[in-house]
């Protein structure tokens, strides 16, 4: 019964949106093309979804379309690094490998990072070192978003016959219902064409208009934070394989390796400070970054004393674990031209990921704070789970857009996404705070993590980058 109530609501919501369209639909008779699966939004997640189902022979007879209004930015790799990068975790590498995309990425440009050091500005002793030598798995790769897109497009070109790419935007959607019997989804495009599909996959990003049109509730929380990104040049150009993240009172600052000479910056801070960072000269900006990684202004003396005591205590435990002294991050010497940019941040979550004939993936379903580098990784996991559920539906002869199997995707993903979202949100709130007792709590937390927890577990519970 509990399962039945949301089902009822899901039908009702859609019916309402039908009214909008039948009024605006007009009387002109257009010929409509019919598809089995339409993916709206050709960002990283939507394009990966298209590759995934386009590549699987089980969908061989299905008509699939990918809708993306924006033309593909580049069809060749640029010499300069882009300032939008993602930290791709091993789970996502598997997904991308399975759909034949990872080989293109590694051929183009991807930087392996072997360890990651996270520490707290309030105490020198609160730091966490995640290193691939403690786990069986690699930490991950830093890849420019443009490179991921380029690789996905290369792959899609080869799947030309299976996936039709339409360069248009979804204006409105409605669900055809007659006598309570559910028909197709009608999609009105911005060029006034109408298309129909049995399943619509909404991959149209955090402001998803599909989510809105389907009346899906969305909880969103703007963070009073701005993310500043830039491509930075390093002073010492030797091995650059560590990702660095330091929690400052206004938000974390992170440096991700791009090559031996370059690292990518993601600095989350308050909007006023963010604006200053965007407007200052290159020299001032570089000084600010270097200073943010090393200054001791934020150390809370008592915390420092307590945590160093704990440290000594922990050191005397013959726990079999190791303790490594924190290393210092590389010094920044320059910045690539025009690479500075700023993005407002928010957290968002759709109460439902699916409705009859509709599934949301990627940022359309969930948007997280970039501090944990989870955004696109969560989206790739959506692609994996939804593809599996849909393939199963095909082998059982199901209507591809029927709610029961879509609900399997939703429950699997919400059980995985919600705890991660909560962890990331708590981390951000916990660290972006000057309160001494909170600082102490996190300091102690870090120390215990370092000593007592198998790092593999941490990597799984809080998969930072």
């Amino acid at each position, binding site marked *: 019964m509990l399962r039945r109530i949301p089902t009822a609501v899901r039908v009702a919501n859609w019916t309402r949106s039908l009214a909008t369209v039948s009024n605006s639909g007009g009387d002109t008779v257009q010929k409509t093309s019919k598809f089995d699966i339409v993916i709206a939004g050709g960002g990283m997640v939507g394009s990966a979804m298209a590759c995934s189902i386009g590549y699987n022979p089980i969908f061989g*007879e299905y008509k699939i379309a990918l809708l993306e209004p924006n033309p593909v930015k580049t069809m060749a790799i640029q010499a300069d690094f882009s300032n939008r990068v993602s930290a791709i975790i091993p789970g996502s590498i598997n997904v991308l490998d399975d759909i034949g995309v990872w080989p293109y990425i590694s051929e183009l440009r991807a930087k392996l990072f072997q360890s990651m050091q996270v520490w707290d500005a309030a105490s020198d002793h609160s730091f966490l070192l995640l290193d691939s030598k403690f786990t069986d798995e690699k930490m991950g790769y830093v890849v420019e978003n443009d490179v991921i897109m380029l690789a996905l497009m290369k792959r899609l070109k080869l799947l030309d016959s299976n996936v039709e790419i339409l360069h248009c935007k979804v204006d409105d959607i409605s669900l055809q219902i007659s006598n309570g019997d559910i028909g197709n989804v009608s999609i009105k495009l911005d060029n006034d064409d109408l298309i129909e599909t049995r399943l619509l996959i909404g991959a149209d990003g955090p402001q998803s208009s599909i989510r809105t049109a389907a009346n899906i509730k969305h909880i969103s929380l703007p963070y009073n934070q701005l993310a500043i990104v830039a491509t930075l040049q390093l002073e010492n150009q030797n091995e650059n394989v560590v990702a660095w993240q330091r929690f400052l009172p206004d938000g974390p600052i992170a440096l991700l390796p791009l090559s031996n000479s370059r690292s990518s910056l993601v600095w989350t801070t308050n909007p006023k400070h963010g604006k200053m960072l965007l407007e200052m000269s290159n020299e001032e900006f570089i000084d600010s970054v270097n200073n943010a990684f090393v200054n001791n202004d934020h150390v809370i003396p008592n915390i420092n004393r307590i945590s160093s005591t704990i440290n000594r205590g922990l050191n005397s435990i013959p726990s079999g674990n190791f303790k490594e002294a924190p290393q210092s991050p590389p010094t920044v010497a320059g910045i690539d031209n025009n690479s500075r940019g700023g993005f407002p941040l928010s957290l968002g979550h759709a109460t439902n990921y699916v409705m009859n004939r509709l599934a949301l993936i990627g940022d359309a379903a969930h948007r997280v704070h970039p501090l944990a580098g989870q955004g696109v990784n969560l989206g790739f996991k959506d692609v994996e789970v939804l593809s599996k559920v849909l393939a199963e539906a095909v082998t059982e002869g199901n209507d591809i857009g029927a709610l029961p199997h879509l609900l399997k995707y939703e429950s699997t993903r919400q*059980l995985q996404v919600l705890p991660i979202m909560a962890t990331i949100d708590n981390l951000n709130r916990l660290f972006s705070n000057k309160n001494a007792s909170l600082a102490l709590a996190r300091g102690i937390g870090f120390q215990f993590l370092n000593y007592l927890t198998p790092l593999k577990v941490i990597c799984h519970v809080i998969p930072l980058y």
Partner: protein
Amino acid sequence: MGSLFAESRCRIYSILQKNRLGYACRNVGKLRFPVNISSQRHNTNTSTANEEEIKQFSDIASKWWQWNNKNMPLHALNMVRVPLIRDALLGDEKSHKIDQPRPLSGYKILDVGCGGGILCEPLARLGAQVTGIDASSEIINVAKAHASKCDRVAANVSYQCTTIEQLTTTENAQSFDAVIASEVIEHVDNVDLFVSSCCQLIKPGGKHIVTTINRTPLSYAVMIIGGEYISRIIPAGSHDWKKFITPKELTKKLEEGGLNVDFIGGIFYNPLTNNAGWLDNTKVNYAIVAHKPSENYEKSNA
């Protein structure tokens, strides 16, 4: 939210059809199960169609495909019966055909008492050539209208309003790779005629798949408990517990029809999660797979 609850492990094995609410209410409180029942109905009817039953199904014809409606258990049951039928037909070919979009291409299937086509449609999508028959013309019209909405289904399915015994007079005997009677046998008159007609239409080497409800104290109890809250999920039908047939009785009838029984398995349906699956007992719902022996079986279009 609902999805979290779906994970909860409450197992309520319900029946897939139910007696009229009135019947259930009358029995609440005296959970005494009628003894000395024999499934042998001394019915000399020449038709298998029970008028009252057919009328009851016809009355809900227009609601057959409504989502969130009373036929949810039949939709859920597909999770079990579609793979069962698919794998029974494919046999050893399964491993290399399962990843193809239409693994059942070339198989001819008859679905007896097909209703609105909840089972015909997935089989058609898997590539089988499906004939659905039902004694109710209203329901057959609903089935036709629904199939026409999906090209992939429409191309592979045809519906006729008829009974199985009539079909034996028109259709070439022994012409189907599989004959299916899912959730029907408990509604028919003259079970012997029904079963022998089904058996007649199966090709040598072809399969017969039946799903139905056992006649046990448990199925009786479930019907009564079900009366309290499943009534909204399951269509009211003149479900007579006495008409239910045990696996043993059915096996005997199938063997009399010249078939060998290969498999008998229990099925559960959980109305809270709308989930169905296999169960290690056949006390309520169960499925039987049988085949008609043959030395050189050839599939229809192969």
